[in-house]
């Protein structure tokens, strides 16, 4: 008798744990052939709030880690993903990719994570400035992490889109609440398992599945979210942009082919950062100078 396969239950990822949605609801996305992908959590606004709470709680210690340490952890994500390459390829194929495309997408995702791992302890050197003010002050501007970033994962891909938006946001010390592609959600949850085994502290990334039009407005209006990043949202764009105004969220909308090698840069990191300028007086006593 053939062995009965163990099917995976896709749950959501909040605060380092894999709960089911508090709402108890589910939905069953279909692939292009009409086969069901599984019973996915149809997350609720309450799940969004729980995810934001977990992300905010994780922000302090994640943002205060050394850049080197964050770089190590992001690199570790790539290591874990490399080890699970086959699993992601199978999931992508289940969702409609050819084997060749699936392999290309996973490999690119891994390499992109390594690319951003390398930026962790470099972007501030490249983008900061010492400002030559006219008064006797030492003045410099450096980038700091922003807080909780709401990531609306690109809809057309299951893995590479979310990696392209999520990793630059968290490699700089932000935490994130990510809403997975509505119709291609499988890799998002499996990616949560990768994160969970990569020394990424619980709460740094929180991943929900469900209907974008149910979840995005609540995330965009949440007063403890600092930014919303996404692709263009079409008919939802204006509503989401307006919901984000109440606490002046930073909002970035990207148009890119995520499967292109070019769709990665330091500027995806700096969009989710705040620039801080600090002034320190320089003591000036007497007339001794450095002109020896």
């Amino acid at each position: 008798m053939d062995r009965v396969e163990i099917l995976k239950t896709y749950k959501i990822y909040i605060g380092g744990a894999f709960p089911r949605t508090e709402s108890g609801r589910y939905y069953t996305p279909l692939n292009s052939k009409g086969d069901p992908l599984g019973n996915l959590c149809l997350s609720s606004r309450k799940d969004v709030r729980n995810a934001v709470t977990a992300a905010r709680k994780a922000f302090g210690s994640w943002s205060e880690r050394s850049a080197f340490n964050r770089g190590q952890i992001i690199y570790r994500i790539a290591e874990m993903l490399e080890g699970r390459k086959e699993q992601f390829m199978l999931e992508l194929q289940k969702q409609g990719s050819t084997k060749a495309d699936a392999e290309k997408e996973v490999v690119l995702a891994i390499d992109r994570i390594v690319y951003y791992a390398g930026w962790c302890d470099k972007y501030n050197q490249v983008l900061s400035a010492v400002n030559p003010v006219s008064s006797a002050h030492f003045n410099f501007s450096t980038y700091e992490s922003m807080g909780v970033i709401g990531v609306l994962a690109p809809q057309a891909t299951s893995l590479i889109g979310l990696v392209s938006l999520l990793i630059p946001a968290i490699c700089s010390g932000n935490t994130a609440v990510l809403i997975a592609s509505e119709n291609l959600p499988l890799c998002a949850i499996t990616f949560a398992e990768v994160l969970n085994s990569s020394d990424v502290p619980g709460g740094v990334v929180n991943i929900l599945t469900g209907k974008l039009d149910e979840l995005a407005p609540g995330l965009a209006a949440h007063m403890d979210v600092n930014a919303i990043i996404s692709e263009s949202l079409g008919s939802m764009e204006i509503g989401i942009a307006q919901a984000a105004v109440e606490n002046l969220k930073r909002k970035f909308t990207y148009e890119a082919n995520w499967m292109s090698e070019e769709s990665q840069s330091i500027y995806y990191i700096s969009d989710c950062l705040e620039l801080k300028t600090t002034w320190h007086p320089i003591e000036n006593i007497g007339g001794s100078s450095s002109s020896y």
Partner: protein
Amino acid sequence: MAKKKTIKGGDNWDYSPSLESTSHITILPKYELFINNEWVKPSSKKYFKTTNPSNEEVLSEIAWANDYDVDLAVKAARNAYNDVWSKTSPKERSKYIYRIARLMQEQARELSVIETLDAGKPIRESRDIDVPLACNHFFYYAGWADKLEFAFPNQPMEALGVAGQIIPWNFPLLMAAWKIAPALAAGNCVVLKPAETTSLTALKLAEIIKESGLPPGVVNIVTGHGDTGAAIVNHPDINKIAFTGSTNVGKIIQRAIAGTGKKATLELGGKSANIIFDDAPIDQAVEGIVNGIFFNQGHVCCAGSRLFVQENIAELVIRKLKHRMDSLYLGNPLDKNTDIGAINSKEQLETIEKYIKIGISEGAEMYQSTCELPGKGYFCRPTIFTNVAQSSRISQEEIFGPVLSIQTFRTVDEVIQKANNSPYGLAAGVWTDKGSRIFNLTSKLRAGVIWANTYNKFDPTSPFGGYKESGFGREGGLHGLGAYLKMKL
């Protein structure tokens, strides 16, 4: 308790008045709109009066632009962008901006006096701070025009097109410089609206721009009230809105442009913390508190309006602060001795007085300088509140006047939490002798500008702007260029 000793010299301690002359300045009785380097009558046919807030006398009448006038200005800017400015080489762009800077320097004294007359700020400040900084801002950005590729490595970029810029009344000329200089350096054309109570120095700047030979339409200045600003925000052919002003209006603007693809930078309100530790040089810190909250009558978005004093020195600091407040000179802004000038407008004075009443009714203890108020004009005594609760409206809401709320703290962790407990995040000050503590605090305070052992310092090379609800984008420095460039990556 030892008897309080105060030097009482009566009139002997007064300085003789030292009034700046107004003989060398020209203010026209009426100003039109500045479009295409021409003075254009407003199609609204309406004018509004601008007054001197220190004596309530009318200084001039200013054109009130309506939708049609704004459209004219935007068209002028668009044509100038398409036909001339986008084809002007960066090197030549640079030289025009240098010219403007030099012409401003040459006319600095006139600009200072007009600024003081129109805005009510002490001549000492407009002469030594506002006007030189405005000139230097043009000077700084002039040099960027042909070096943009060094600002953002590996970033293909281009100008945005037409920028709509709306500026506040607290630093009228300086804010015009903060807006126009980087926009031109990055290759944009501009439609700028000054605040309705302080249009004069922007119109003087228009004269300078015309004199500089800048091509017509590159800078257009339309005067008016909020409806004029709304016409700029809603104009479909504007690529960018740069706004400095209140958080409320900033949110209205942000909603209005949601989904339009217009780029925005917003420099909004603040409720900045000024933190004094027990090892701080106390007398310097008291000067810093005074400079933090009473500079420009407290009409400063980054004013140090929440003072946190370590508990064991609170009594000493507050006693010295009250003593210092009593020696501040409040009066005619044209007097070179004046420390505290006029409140910018009647409406703003009413807002400040409303908050003072709220502070009293919430149970905080008030102290005001003992100085006399002039008979005419809009003036407010420097005011401090002690025993203020964290939840009090005077410690949560921006007052934009010479009103300080004082709280105490015991530990570093406590003051970080209290200071960050605000929807705003524009600036903060830290006073301590300990370097490692400064770096601990400056990295944990959620604000865009941190002053260590100083306060309210500005420089063209130094980026300025806030976290959270204090807005987004930076003005000044290399990073300020980013607000006016279309980044492709």
